[in-house]
């Protein structure tokens, strides 16, 4: 019972509500929701890294790698969503494990930029590969789910539930992990690495574990995105601006709560969607402006709104 706290209950309620809502949602709402879950998962990985004081400006690397790994499997005839998403997740995880040996030695802006450099290399490789459609990318056919082959709207409905279940498991898992000793080490590494090492833990190993995790969930997000959109291409999957968007979402969400990343991703999608609709030529202005506003006026992210509310409730009346 000690594992059940407010966050777990909140996440479970959200999960159940969304699960049921899936059958009633307008298609475009579900689609935005699906994207938010995928991007939110990537941001969750970044959040875990951020708790150790590290920010990556290159997680489009794992996002794109997972997306392309899943999409390439469809080219050779595999269409099962479980297999595709598992493969995408695993591929990104393995890549993160390998690069982790190098990256775990770096901190601060160097860490951020090295990640970005690696993501640009992936971008270059994809652009150069004509067999994979270069900058045009290629289409990903509709997935099947353990033999069930939905048609029409059912595709997105099923995919939404599929994604929801997995993100729920991942998110609750992360939350519980954070409460373990190794998980709690994050903040310690962020605050003072050398003291952590004097306590007998390896800061580099702590970072490596988080890094692989962040790679795994980014690959997961990428694979889901590939299936949801039905298309992969380097500009929207592996470019540095995509990495920037993930950091944007992470900061939007704040460090406070694992569930916040999904709300952050949703808010991001909504800002972008409405900016596109109402200011077709100046949507970047609105996106950038909102980001600046959040950085200036909501330094701890959207979650701090909730915390503030709670605090003001508790405040004794004079």
């Amino acid at each position, binding site marked *: 019972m000690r594992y059940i706290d407010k966050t777990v209950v909140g996440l479970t309620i959200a999960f159940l509500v969304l699960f049921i809502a899936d059958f009633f949602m307008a298609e475009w709402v579900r689609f935005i929701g699906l994207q938010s879950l995928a991007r939110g998962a990537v941001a969750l990985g970044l959040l875990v890294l951020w708790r150790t004081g590290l920010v990556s400006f290159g997680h489009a690397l794992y996002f794109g790698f997972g997306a392309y790994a899943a999409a390439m499997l469809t080219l050779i005839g595999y269409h099962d969503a479980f297999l595709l998403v598992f493969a995408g997740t695993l591929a990104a995880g393995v890549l993160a494990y390998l690069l982790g040996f*190098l990256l775990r030695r770096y901190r601060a802006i160097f860490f951020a930029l090295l990640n*970005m*450099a690696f993501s*640009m290399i992936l971008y270059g490789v994809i652009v*150069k590969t004509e067999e994979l459609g270069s900058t045009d990318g290629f289409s990903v056919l509709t997935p099947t789910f353990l033999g069930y082959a939905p048609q029409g709207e059912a595709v997105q409905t099923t995919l939404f539930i599929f994604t929801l279940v997995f993100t729920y498991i991942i998110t609750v898992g992360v939350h519980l992990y954070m409460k373990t000793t190794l998980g709690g080490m994050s903040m310690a590494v962020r605050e003072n690495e050398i003291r952590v090492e004097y306590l007998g833990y390896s800061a580099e190993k702590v970072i490596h574990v988080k890094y692989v995790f962040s790679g795994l969930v980014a690959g997961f997000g990428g694979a889901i995105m590939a299936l949801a959109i039905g298309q992969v291409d380097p500009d929207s999957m592996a470019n540095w601006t995509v990495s920037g968007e993930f950091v944007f979402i992470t900061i939007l969400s704040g460090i406070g709560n694992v569930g916040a990343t999904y709300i952050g991703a949703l808010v991001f999608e909504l800002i972008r969607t409405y900016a596109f609709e109402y200011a077709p030529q100046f949507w970047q*202005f609105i996106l*950038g402006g909102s980001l600046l506003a959040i950085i200036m006026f909501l*330094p701890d992210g959207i979650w701090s709104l909730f915390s503030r509310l709670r605090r003001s409730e508790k405040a004794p009346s004079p």
Partner: protein
Amino acid sequence: MQELIVILIDGLVFSSYLFMVSVGLTVIFGVMKILNVAHGSFYAFGAYMSATLIGAYYNTDLPEFGGFLAIFLAALIIGVFFGIVLERGLLRFLYHRDEHIIVLATFAMFLVLEDVLMMIWGTDPYYAYEPMALLGAVDIVELTFDVYSLTLIGLAVIVGLGLWLGLTRTKWGKLLLAVIFDREISQAMGINVTVVFTVTFVVGAIMGALGGAYIAPTISVSPGIGVEVIVLSFAVVVIGGMGSIPGAMIGALLVGISRAAAVHKFPEIELFVIYAIMALVLAIRPEGLFAPAQARKI
């Protein structure tokens, strides 16, 4: 032999281009530890301003060579204006925050400025080829080169040397180095860090704008030119070692000459040269070739 010389010249021209577009980024990072994504906007605004001023200048009857003044004037106007507005109006409120938040703030500024650019100049491209046409061409090893591109080499050398000397040989430079080394102690010793930061940011912005302003006559000044420069300058700076001016120079030379060799010998791999060098440097010496030493915090 001819090919070798041509590769060298092409390489030097491209290296100078790389250095000019990345030096502003290096200056700001070196002193303030801010990775300035809005650097791409400085470049783009510099180019647009330069094209506008050059166009206006050649509509008058003033002597033709005065067009070059327009280039430097454009860089000054853009650099000083945006440097002061962004640093005083925005960045200074963020110095106490995590550095990646500052990066993201500059990313946001970049997004905003991209659209501001379009609000001012629209989507139609601007041309300012007159200075390039004015300098004409010259034959080296039986191949024609345009003189304007060759002057880029000179400019890069002057800017590089000037910055380096300014940093190591002047009183101001020494103050800067002190701030780079330890911001808090410098403050305690009576250095006005606030002014140092503002001046540095303005200088970096002028450099970024100068890159765009000087390149403007050779290109079509149109939407999207700033984005490309961001990636390119990041790569050069990562290779050379973040914040090091000699590093940026070596990084630019390495990439520029390798790229020219690839174009002449193996054009298929041109796209990869910059990434390959970056990967190689990162694998061997990830802090970059000339990175300043980092102290671990205890």
